[in-house]
């Protein structure tokens, strides 16, 4: 039951954190979603060989996590889960760009390794911010905010249903897998078998989607989701969003890390 326990745990903790109480939780979901989108956009806009200039951006996810009561280990575990995909993307850089570019701690570093570090850092910042957003807002809050900000309903609905049924479908896939394992006696899955298992999962997901749709029609669904209770935008939300926007703009325009280094006597970046 490892699979089931792990999936359940993932959703459970994310959910529990989202139901918590903190100044960050009390912010309007729209403020947090927009700030996070700006954050991701700004971090992504840096050129591929910048590393040190990205450092000040860690302030955003770190301060929200601290104020919102999201444990660092919780974020780290999510980062590790996504890490393999990012490594695949970044791994080629050190081989492609061998020209020396910088000197870090007395070591000469090639442009490829600088790009590698930059990609990893940007990944940690953006994914970290997304995890903190969901952990302090809840998937429900995020989809509602996106809806109200004018994101296409087809997209927000897809996101909400994914969150609702990922666990159900994951468990179904696990049950199919377990049924196979119990009679496989250690023999590995052949490609043909895998295709058949995967199609089983697909067909069952399809079938469930049809039943859910019938259940929705049975309760008067006509293609539009009814308006839910309104969100309340307050002064603190404006201050929050304006403050972070200014910070992102400043950190993008000036190298704050270098500036801080100049301000503190004796420290040179």
């Amino acid at each position, binding site marked *: 039951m490892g699979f089931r326990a792990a999936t*359940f745990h993932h*959703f*459970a903790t994310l*959910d529990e954190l989202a*139901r918590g109480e903190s100044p960050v939780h009390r912010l309007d979901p729209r403020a947090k979603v927009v700030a996070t989108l700006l954050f991701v956009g700004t971090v992504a806009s840096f050129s591929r060989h910048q590393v040190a200039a990205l450092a000040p951006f860690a302030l955003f996810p770190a301060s929200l996590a601290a104020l919102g009561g999201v444990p660092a280990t919780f974020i780290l575990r999510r980062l590790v889960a996504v890490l393999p995909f990012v490594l695949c993307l970044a791994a080629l850089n050190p081989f492609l760009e061998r020209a020396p570019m910088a000197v870090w701690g007395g070591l000469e570093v090639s442009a490829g390794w600088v790009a590698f570090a930059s990609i990893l850092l940007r990944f940690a910042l953006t994914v970290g911010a997304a995890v903190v957003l969901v952990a302090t807002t*809840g*998937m*429900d809050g995020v989809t509602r905010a996106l809806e109200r900000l004018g994101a296409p309903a087809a997209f927000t609905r897809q996101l*909400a*249903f994914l*969150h*609702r*049924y990922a*666990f*159900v479908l994951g468990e179904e896939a696990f049950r199919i897998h377990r049924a196979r394992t119990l009679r496989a006696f250690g023999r590995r899955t052949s490609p043909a078998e895998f295709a058949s298992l995967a199609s089983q999962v697909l067909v069952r997901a399809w079938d*469930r989607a049809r*039943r*859910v749709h*019938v*259940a*929705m*029609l*049975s*309760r*008067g*669904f*006509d293609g539009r989701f*009814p*308006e*839910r*209770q309104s969100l309340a935008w307050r002064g603190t939300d404006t201050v929050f969003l304006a403050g972070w926007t200014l910070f992102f703009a400043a950190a993008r325009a000036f190298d704050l890390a270098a500036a801080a280094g100049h301000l503190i006597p004796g420290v040179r970046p």
Partner: protein
Amino acid sequence: MSGPILEVSGLAYAYPDGTRALRGLDFALVPGECVALVGANGAGKSTLLQHLNGTLLPLEGRVAVDGHIIAPATLSAVRRAVGMVFQDPDDQLFMPTVYEDVAFGPRNLGLPETEVDARVMGALDQVDALPLAAKPPYRLSAGEKRRAALATVLALEPALLVLDEPTSGLDPRGRRHLIELLGAFPHTRLIATHDVDLVLELCPRTLVLHEGQLMADGPTLSIFRDEALLATCRLEKPLSMQGCPVCAAKRDTPWSARHL
């Protein structure tokens, strides 16, 4: 006295692959009745249920709910009148929280938010599920899910409640709780189930479906005493009507009725 809540006449249906699932059914439910629909696997129960809210439309014959003959033009009125509780509550609970889910139907009706709130709280209260309001569906136990699914339908104040296997997958206490809740509802109820002991407790009248035909429609007790009928339709007597395995005493009257 108003007419029947549900009227099925000459209903026949065959699936596109040629399987003749229903072969001419006739029956009616009067207001307030609690009727059981029993039959072996493949007897046509699910196909019949799908006709009751227009998920399937009859090939022959007709189905009328609360005075509306089911047809594409009447679907929204019919779906307002029929509260369908599905076998798998995961299919029925698709919103982020139980509250949102129960509110889904009333909001689709365009009710004002105060009325929606009153309906949601009323429905949750009816199934003893008020403490579940803020929970997401995947954090509920099977019994809680079942009651929440029931509330989503009750909030629409349906004229007819249709329940598909309401006790499957419940532990004995959860099953008992649900039977008590269902017994107390004022709605006209049609319960499709293999749980024949539940039938004996809740439904004075039973419909027996076999190979797409209605084999019997009558008082539950006399149907479960008809050994020949039960054998033909691949059904068994409720446990409470069977001989006691410990003292070997024969009986064909349930406990409750023997002491009347």
